[in-house]
């Protein structure tokens, strides 16, 4: 770390809490961000001489708030008389800031900040971009790199999302239990979207792998605020267990390495341990939701020292449960992989037959179909399926992976008898 590295780390660690609190005071995302920015500049000036404050987060909120009050007063004078309602709770806030603040204090603030990023009026890609910019504090160029778009396009996307959010109005009342649960679910989905955006990235793309780290950081933050929510434990565990495989998921040339072929020694043991511990905790609640079930599936892979040790019957069972509580063609497609291991490729093929229409534009549907047909020796049909998959591939690595399978097909004798039916 450089000399001011510790300040950057402290500031970025405090960001979600500080912006959340500032948003509560000023009820305006732009002002909250500006206030935080001002406070960060002051921190860069003062902390190197004075050393870090006892509670950097409270310091940033306090200093940011004072800086922005001036701005608000100026603006109000230009436009209209100061709105007492906006400023009235500042006195109380000051005295409460004198005490050290714990996480519970910020709970609804942070949830609100995350929640406004997943406003239903804005597209999911915009939700992710907004969360990364506002909550995680990634710069526009960083986010643009992660999404493979130009900086100006990303700037525009974020600005548009912000104005939508502002127009929609931010919900400032303290949420009731039902509303809080709804917000939590929406935020969990958004965090998972951030993760998936990074997870589906091509290899060695650090800008996108960073999104997975950010998603895990946000999930841990959420879990500290809501420590007894099994689905948040499940979400965090699922992401940890999947991200633990990062180093093994691509080869030196950036080509996809399937689970069966991965060097399990490259898996991140600490992340797996944390994921398994969270599943253990969540299971005690005895009401498994979709995230927890998916985490449990990932855990069965993580626990297998070798691919042949994988407990496929249990994975099939978990997918069946998931299909029951959250039916979707993609879940069935994933279950078919387990079915092919347990009952053979023919059974799996029968299972995915009805998915042809709903998943007609889905890369993985044709990838799996090709693999199953090729296991059955139906080479021509397998080739057709693989061709469709390549046409639908979203990354070069995906396409290259299917091409490898096509090459293997071509190396197979044409008259190979069908394996067990």
């Amino acid at each position, binding site marked *: 770390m450089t000399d001011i590295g510790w300040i950057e780390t402290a500031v970025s*660690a405090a960001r979600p809490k500080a912006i959340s609190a500032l948003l509560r005071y000023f009820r305006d995302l732009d002002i909250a961000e500006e206030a935080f920015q001002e406070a960060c500049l002051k921190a860069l000036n003062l902390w190197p001489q004075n050393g870090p404050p006892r509670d950097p987060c409270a310091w940033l909120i306090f200093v940011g708030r004072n800086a922005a009050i001036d701005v608000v007063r100026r603006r109000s004078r230009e436009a209209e008389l100061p709105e007492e309602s906006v400023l009235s709770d500042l006195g109380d806030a000051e005295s409460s800031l004198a005490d050290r603040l714990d996480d519970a204090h910020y709970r609804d603030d942070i949830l609100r900040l995350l929640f406004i990023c997943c406003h239903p009026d804005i597209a999911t890609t915009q939700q992710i971009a907004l969360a990364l910019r506002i909550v995680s504090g990634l710069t526009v160029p960083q986010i643009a790199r992660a999404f493979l778009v130009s900086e100006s396009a990303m700037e525009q996307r974020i600005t548009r999302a912000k104005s939508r959010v502002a127009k929609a109005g931010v919900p400032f009342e303290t949420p009731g239990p039902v509303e809080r649960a709804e917000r939590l679910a929406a935020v969990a989905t958004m965090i998972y979207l951030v993760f998936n955006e990074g997870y589906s990235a091509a290899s060695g793309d650090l800008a996108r792998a960073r999104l997975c780290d950010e998603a895990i*950081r946000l999930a841990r933050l959420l879990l500290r605020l809501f420590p007894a929510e099994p689905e948040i434990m499940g979400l965090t565990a699922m992401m940890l267990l999947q991200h633990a495989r990062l180093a093994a998921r691509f080869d030196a040339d950036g080509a996809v390495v399937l689970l069966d072929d991965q060097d399990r020694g490259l898996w991140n043991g600490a992340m797996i341990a944390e994921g398994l511990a969270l599943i253990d905790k969540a299971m*005690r609640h005895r009401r498994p939701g979709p995230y927890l079930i998916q985490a449990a599936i990932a855990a069965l892979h993580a626990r297998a020292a070798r691919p042949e040790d994988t407990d496929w019957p249990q994975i099939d069972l978990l997918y069946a449960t998931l299909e029951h509580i959250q039916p979707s063609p993609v879940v069935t497609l994933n279950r078919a992989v387990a079915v092919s291991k347990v009952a053979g490729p023919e059974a799996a093929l029968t299972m995915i037959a009805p998915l042809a229409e709903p998943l007609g534009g889905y890369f993985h549907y044709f990838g799996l179909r090709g693999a199953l047909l090729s296991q059955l020796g139906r080479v021509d049909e397998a080739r057709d399926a693989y061709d469709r998959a390549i046409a639908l591939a979203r990354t070069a690595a995906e396409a290259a992976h299917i091409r490898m399978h096509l090459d293997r097909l071509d190396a197979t004798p044409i008259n190979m008898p069908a394996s067990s039916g």
Partner: protein
Amino acid sequence: MLYAILCYHSEDVVGSWTKEEDAAVMAKLAVVQDKLAREGRLGPVARLLPTTAATTLRKDQDPPLVLDGPYAETKEQLLGFYLVEGGSLEDVLDTTRELAAANPGGAYEVRPVGAFFPGALRP
């Protein structure tokens, strides 16, 4: 005299470290630990998993109450610790219930250990 050194830090901050920053801190700590080990002064060292992985057993009631999350109060003080092996969280909670029966009052926080180095100290 044996001393326990208990490590406190802001989890927000440590959790914000990049892999490289984390590794750099660990490498610097390893230098100090190696020196202690050479002097024969180093006992077990453990890095705990984040507090999100913690479970707390309140043993000031019977039966004890199991809560998600770390010990988060200030009315009791840290007086000791155990390192135990357990197949699952449930196993370890059973162990803490046995301990609680022997010594009610207060709480146990159960936290999985991420990294563990046994050290070479003898009692």
